[in-house]
């Protein structure tokens, strides 16, 4: 394969070629797609309840574990008892359903009783749920990482590359990017074209007014938690399929970056969460690719600080006017 020169030859050891840039963009998009799915949950819950659900990363973790246990129950990656397409479908179905239900349970027991409490109370409760889930996972599943071992799935074909000219992308990367895209499109359709979506938007706009207009607020909130958590579950299974390892604290790092993505995109905004997630993933990947892996967090959280300073409402957020 011939290198297509971009600018010069090398920058900080990294080749300045179009295909190298493409490979890093694909890696960033793959990672960013997962951040985006996770960020959507943060944003949707914040949009409706004005609650920072810090337990959302742990919902991602549980989704990833559910996928792992389904994979194991179906014979494991090397000797799966079902065809690969069905296997992957089952992993996502179980991961999304399990995480969705977990989100509903968390809302019911940890947040709903505090809905009329001061803003700090549910925030503390969210942190408590986060640690509770982490430690429960450590007790139940052990702290040793469980491995999807996706390189053994279907003889490792998931990681074969499709080559178009000088550009290459792995099947698993293409799948993650496309599937995340499909989930986001479905979510947008759901929010903009269904009665429940309209109720969600109304509740997000003014919870009390929506309630007075006859909208079942509890039902809307439960539905929001279910959808947001199911998307986190999907991201958890994707994480296992691409990066293999799942362990009790896996949701912490991913959750922190996804939260950053939600803030950068404009917390409460669905398109903002999507764009923010992808942007953070790509920023992380390019930082590793062109600077050094040591700079990745500096870049990611530097972006957060810059946005906080120059545009606190994020890319798609609208500034809130406070009446005095």
């Amino acid at each position, binding site marked *: 394969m011939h290198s297509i020169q971009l600018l010069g030859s090398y920058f900080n050891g990294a080749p300045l070629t179009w295909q190298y840039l493409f490979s890093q963009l694909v*890696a960033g998009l793959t990672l960013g797609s997962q951040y985006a799915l996770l960020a959507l949950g943060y944003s949707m819950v914040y949009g409706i309840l004005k609650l920072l659900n810090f337990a959302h990363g742990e919902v991602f973790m549980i989704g990833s574990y559910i996928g792992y246990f389904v994979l194991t129950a179906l014979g494991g990656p090397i000797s799966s008892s079902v065809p690969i397409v069905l296997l992957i479908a089952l992993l996502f179905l179980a991961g999304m359903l399990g995480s969705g239900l977990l989100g509903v349970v968390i809302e019911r027991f940890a947040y709903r009783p505090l809905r009329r409490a001061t803003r700090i109370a549910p925030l503390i409760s969210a942190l408590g749920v986060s640690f509770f889930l982490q*430690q429960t996972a450590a007790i139940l599943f052990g702290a*040793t*990482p469980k491995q999807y071992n996706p390189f053994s799935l279907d003889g490792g074909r998931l990681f074969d590359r499709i080559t178009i000219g000088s550009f290459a992308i792995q099947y698993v990367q293409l799948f993650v990017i496309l599937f995340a895209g499909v989930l986001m499109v479905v979510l947008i359709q759901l929010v903009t074209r269904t009665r429940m979506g309209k109720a969600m938007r109304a509740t997000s706009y003014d919870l009390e007014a929506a309630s007075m207009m006859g909208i079942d607020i509890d039902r809307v909130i439960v539905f929001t938690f279910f959808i947001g958590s199911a998307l986190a579950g999907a991201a958890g299974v994707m994480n296992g399929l*691409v990066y*293999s390892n799942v362990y009790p604290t896996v949701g912490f790092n991913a959750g922190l970056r996804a939260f950053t993505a939600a803030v950068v995109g404009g917390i409460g905004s669905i398109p903002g969460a999507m764009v923010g997630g992808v942007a953070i993933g790509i920023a992380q*990947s390019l930082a*590793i690719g062109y600077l050094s892996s040591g700079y990745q967090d500096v870049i990611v959280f530097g972006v957060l600080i810059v946005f906080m300073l120059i545009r606190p409402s994020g890319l798609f957020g609208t500034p809130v006017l406070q009446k005095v």
Partner: protein
Amino acid sequence: MRKISLVAFGASVIALAAVAGASAAGQKAAVALAGPSCSTATIGVTGPFTGPAASAGIDQRNWARLFVTDWNSGKPIPGVPAGFKRTKIKTIEDDTQLNPQVAATVATQLRSNSAVVGVVGFSGSQEVVAGGPILRRGGMVFISGSATRASLTDPTSSDGQGLKTGYFYRVVPNDNFQSVVDATFALKKMGVKSGDHVMTVDQAEAYSVPLIAAISAQLQKAGVVVDHESQPATQTDFTSLANKAVGEHATAVILASQVASNAQLFAQQLKAAGYSGGFLGTDGTFDATKFTFPGAYVSTFSLDVNKIPADATIAAQFTKAFGATNNFGPPTWVATQMLAMAISKACTDGKISRNEVRRDVPTISLKTSLLGHPIGFQKDGDQLGGVSFTVFQIQSDGSYKVVQPG
């Protein structure tokens, strides 16, 4: 009804927490509260029994357990002279999770338990840095079977100043040996030449950062262009690094990590990105159950005990009791042995204290050991003599084959 369900949920949470607490407490049921005793001396055995490095820590714990069983029952042990009077040993096992904060908590617990006269551990260098000074202030000696960071025994370094000479010992060679072995191996056996690119990767913690810095320096001295990367162990997306290794045409990638599954994943992601050069993992990646990428190399301070004829009986005994060893734990057997022999020596007058054990540890020397070579300590706590690192290559069936003996 709502109140009842909330109460039920709350009760369930408390019950779950209570069960978890009881389970954790159960593991420490053997905690001794009386003072030190020569009838049965108490030692701490620490290691990452859970967490990402659990497979290494559990192997260490199992070798320590087997040693104590054999020691207490009077079975022959390599390096123990015939007629040596043994003081029986009882252990308190503490899980440090390869986490410095946990290691510091464990150190505080062991220090405050007056029955404990010495400790086997810590496993990770970052744990020694965090927990070691606490044990030192308690007057306790501690012997590691795996902490290799060179500065731990350098009295001029900040690590060495925190630990002070005479408290910390190790039965494994330090990273100064490993960095030379790994860099030389890359140059001589992995086809790395002057002017080539090599990617070296640490995991942003106390073990891997200085080790990779030392390996990088050795390679740079030989004219190699080194791309030194740093990625935390909790982040398992190596895709961008793999793309970079391919892009810069790296001849070799060297990873220092204490998480063997990360080495496996990185090697797999490198292959998926189209990388075709060599891959070398340092001693922390040595785990034949987790790192099984064919063709990759692993350097380690340990030897394959199954290949040492004199160890055949003990190796078979271990396999029967715990299953196959991943060979990370045998040095911990030797660390426990050094401590047990020092305790026995201190007990010759029928009395024992932490100070006496600490005084006697450097006087113990083994003419032979489970590791197949003599063991003794220098004044600074390092091992006597020039025992070096062994390099293994992973075979297509996942087994480890020695390609450069230590």
